[in-house]
């Protein structure tokens, strides 16, 4: 029976995460789509259950209990809706099973290899390694690397259409020689996607057809000036569903239940971020910090980018955050005395028992200190990846020559950034919203005027897959129910001296008084302003400080309030530094926590 996806009245959607499975029910009421309830249950891919559908059903049962609606008939999802029973459509996303792990290969590291990496990341994959003919490794090292890794899939690209074929053919020869062993067992043929120079296709087919499950798609970099990532991304997704997901316990059943193909969670979150940027015409950074990975999405200059830091997360990979950041970087955010060996053990215990939660305030502060570092490091990785295309001959005029900028520059611009959206347990489940605002500010260091928000109950994945079916429904629920507006951060760029004026600010809250303040360098404080009518803000930065209009130039605008209101942060940007002295730093952290009303006394 074909469904009328245009006129849906209700949507049931699940997201199968690595730790928990979340289910939401959306209904059309008074002409608009709204979230009704949300349920949750542990994900059941592992022993003893080993069937992802059980976790999904448990989450849906919780939705039934909380909504009073009947959505299941035994273990069957009732669809379409009939009277009060069932829902019109069932959708799902998933990141359970560790996601899709890929290797990509291209000829030139900063051109085709990088484009291949973007294609893979955009499809929701984790990129284990990027091979390139010019990556500095010897051929035998590349072969060893392919043999050592156990990718689910390989994406091979290289050469513009009509260009030389030898390099990409050589890469294919190395892949064939390495005889990569996929992680899913003996009988499984490794999917390989070829998305390079079309002239090399016959040679690639000859070399790889027998040993791998080879698919050929359009060149993802047909000419240097243009990327064509769509066909490769779609093929990655199709193969992911067909080969990888189909092997994971219970997925074949789940796939048969959904009305549209299951999307990998990161692909879905990326989709809703792009939708917001498009609809509200803003530059956005979104972050999803999970147990195993931290995904960052950005839209700058209408260009979407996504990175997955598969090595940074709050449970499964929490020890890696410690390894990458170092003990000092984490300890610098902890506002009390702590023995480093004790901290190491606590982090280790969280890694091996990932589903536990902080019970004491001390434990919560430690987790949030770790989160700051995970977010900071993931963002550094994102900034270096979200760059303009390299390899392009630009027409230069006189002012460009003096400007000295080149393509390959990061697209990320914290001054022009309009909105920062956070998602993931440590942000969305923070007991006080101001804790989430504070983590986002400390980790990302937004500049100028930036709105802050969190995904209230991390339903962005479900909205992302819904957006492919019904954009309106997804956008309605996103703006009305999904986003919790935390407020707006006002942070001038520049370095100053404590107790010297940094700026003057005037905030007019609707129905309230005007707050006029002279702000010193090094301050952090909040002006309450609930979300609703926009708040008028005028900022006059002192000489040497920039609020986006140039040094010393005043700005005047209207900004949204939120649960935290207007957060004024003159602690410094470029640079931002914490005091080196331990006692002074602890004192400062405690003062800032108080200013933000971050924790109970």
């Amino acid at each position: 029976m074909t469904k009328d996806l245009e006129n849906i009245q209700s949507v049931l959607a699940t997201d199968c995460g690595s730790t928990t499975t979340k289910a939401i029910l959306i209904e059309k009421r008074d002409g608009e789509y709204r979230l009704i309830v949300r349920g949750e249950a542990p994900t059941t891919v592992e022993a003893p259950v080993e069937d992802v559908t059980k976790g999904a059903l448990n989450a849906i049962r919780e939705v039934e209990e909380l909504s009073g609606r009947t959505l299941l008939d035994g273990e069957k999802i009732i669809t379409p809706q009939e009277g009060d029973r069932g829902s019109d459509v069932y959708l799902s996303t998933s990141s359970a099973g560790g996601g899709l792990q890929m290797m990509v290969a291209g000829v030139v590291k900063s051109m085709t290899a990088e484009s291949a990496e973007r294609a893979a990341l955009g499809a929701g994959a984790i990129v284990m390694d990027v091979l390139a003919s010019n990556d500095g490794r010897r051929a035998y090292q590349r072969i060893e690397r392919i043999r050592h890794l156990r990718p689910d899939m390989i994406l091979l690209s290289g050469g513009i259409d009509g260009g030389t074929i030898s390099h990409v053919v050589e890469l294919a020869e190395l892949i064939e020689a390495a005889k990569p062993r996929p992680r899913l067992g003996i009988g499984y043929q490794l999917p390989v996607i070829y998305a390079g120079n079309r002239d090399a296709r016959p040679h690639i087919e000859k070399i790889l057809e027998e040993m791998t499950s080879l698919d050929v798609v359009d060149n993802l970099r047909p000419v240097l000036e243009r990327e064509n990532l769509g066909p490769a991304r779609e093929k990655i997704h199709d193969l992911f569903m067909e080969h990888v997901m189909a092997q994971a316990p219970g997925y074949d059943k789940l796939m048969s239940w959904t009305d549209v193909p299951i999307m990998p969670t990161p692909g879905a979150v990326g989709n809703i971020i792009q939708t917001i940027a498009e609809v509200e015409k803003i530059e956005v950074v979104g972050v999803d910090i999970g147990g195993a990975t931290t995904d960052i999405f950005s839209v700058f200059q209408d260009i979407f980018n996504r990175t997955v830091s598969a090595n940074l997360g709050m449970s499964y990979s929490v020890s890696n955050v410690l390894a990458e950041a170092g003990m000092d970087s984490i300890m610098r955010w902890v506002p009390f005395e702590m023995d480093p060996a004790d901290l190491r053990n606590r982090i280790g215990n969280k890694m091996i028992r990932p589903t536990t939660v902080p019970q004491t305030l001390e434990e919560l502060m430690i987790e949030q200190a770790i989160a700051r570092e995970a977010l900071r490091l993931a963002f550094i990785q994102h900034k270096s990846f979200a760059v303009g295309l390299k390899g392009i001959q630009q027409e230069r005029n006189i002012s460009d020559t003096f400007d000295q900028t080149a393509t390959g520059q990061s697209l990320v611009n914290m001054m022009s950034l309009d909105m920062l959206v956070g998602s993931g347990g440590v942000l969305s489940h923070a007991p006080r919203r101001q804790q989430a605002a504070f983590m986002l500010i400390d980790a990302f260091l937004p500049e100028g005027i930036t709105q802050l928000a969190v995904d209230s109950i991390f339903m962005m994945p479900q909205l992302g897959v819904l957006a492919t079916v019904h954009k309106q429904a997804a956008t309605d629920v996103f703006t009305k129910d999904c986003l919790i507006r935390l407020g707006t951060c006002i942070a001038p760029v520049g370095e100053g001296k404590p107790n010297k004026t940094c700026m003057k600010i005037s905030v007019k809250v609707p129905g309230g008084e005007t707050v006029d303040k002279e702000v010193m360098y090094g301050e952090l404080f909040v002006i309450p302003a609930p979300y609703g009518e926009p708040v008028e803000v005028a900022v006059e930065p002192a000489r040497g400080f920039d609020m986006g209009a140039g040094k010393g130039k005043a700005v005047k605008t209207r900004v949204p309030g939120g649960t935290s209101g207007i957060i004024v942060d003159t602690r410094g940007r470029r640079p931002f530094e914490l005091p080196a002295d331990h006692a002074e730093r602890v004192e400062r952290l405690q003062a800032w926590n108080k200013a933000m009303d971050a924790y109970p006394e």
Partner: protein
Amino acid sequence: MAHAYTPGLRVAERTTVLKERRLPLPGEVLVKEGDIVNADQVVAKTDLPGNVQPINVANLLSLEPADIKEFMLKKEGDAIKKDEPLARTAGLFGMFKRTHHSPVSGTVESVSDVTGQVLIREAPIPVEVKAYIDGTVTELFPNEGIAVETTAAYIQGIFGLGGETNGELTMVCSEPDEVLTESQIDESCRGKVLVGGSLLDLPALHKAIQVGAKGVVVGGFNDQDVKEVLGYDLGVAITGHEELGTTLLITEGFGKIRMAEDTFNLLKSLEGRKASINGATQIRAGVIRPEVVIPLAKDETKKDIEEKGASEGMVIGSQVRVIRQPHFGVLGHVTELPAALQKLPTEGMVRVCKVKLESGEEVIIPRANVELIEK
């Protein structure tokens, strides 16, 4: 019924243990169904394709890729020895010929006239799979391996280092809260699987490795010491391939934590028996926990093995262990399961359980912070 978020670690006095022993590539299975095997016995073997040496002959001899086949002295499928001539140019009037010699011994696998690259595959690498536990072969997977089954005591740990091994179970500590130190380990520990109490300190682990102990089972170990012993920070809990010399299995967690009474007493009751141990751990999808398998003597297996019913989840009376601060590692039983969310000191609202600890104290713990003790 409440969800138990953390399936408990298994500690069973007597259960059926079934292990699948498979090759990574098709090969030869050396035993048959019904055979009795011992832990160190090789049950299947195969060869992994040897390492590949790529040589761009075209570049090295300044030839066009399309021409190299003309100057190759070996063709695809030919064997070649190290330093044997591989290709030679014609030179000028028969003089100034240039020769490239093979850097390795192996077989010429391919010669490409598109890239000018020659691949030489070295000798295959033999791979053997052992039985790992003493038991009976109950199933044969043709060309792949076997399933081996035994009746045994079974103990799961929370984290481990090192791979499969076996040895005689030996109690080194007499109490589950005792620290296992260097002075308690000597030459008599060679070849044994040692059992400690609440903590194994680093000097003791080094000593165990030095004397050739096969394994150590202990309640706790410091995370800092993991870094010391590996030489790097273990970012993600995926282990099993470390070649320490001694397999380590931790039953409770990081830090000094008293080994659970049941676990300690079970191990004590089986002292002297052969124990198979595997430290491999994977805390991700497809969770793998480290384990100790102690096959029971034949006459003991005649007793009926109680069929373990499906887990009920957490109910009033369930025995649990606390798995996070505060009260980390303490045992208790559930006295209440409040339906409503409760506020923690963090101000977070979560599902909780009321637990009566061993000490008699009654505490509120988030349900996510206890694990069921499963038999």
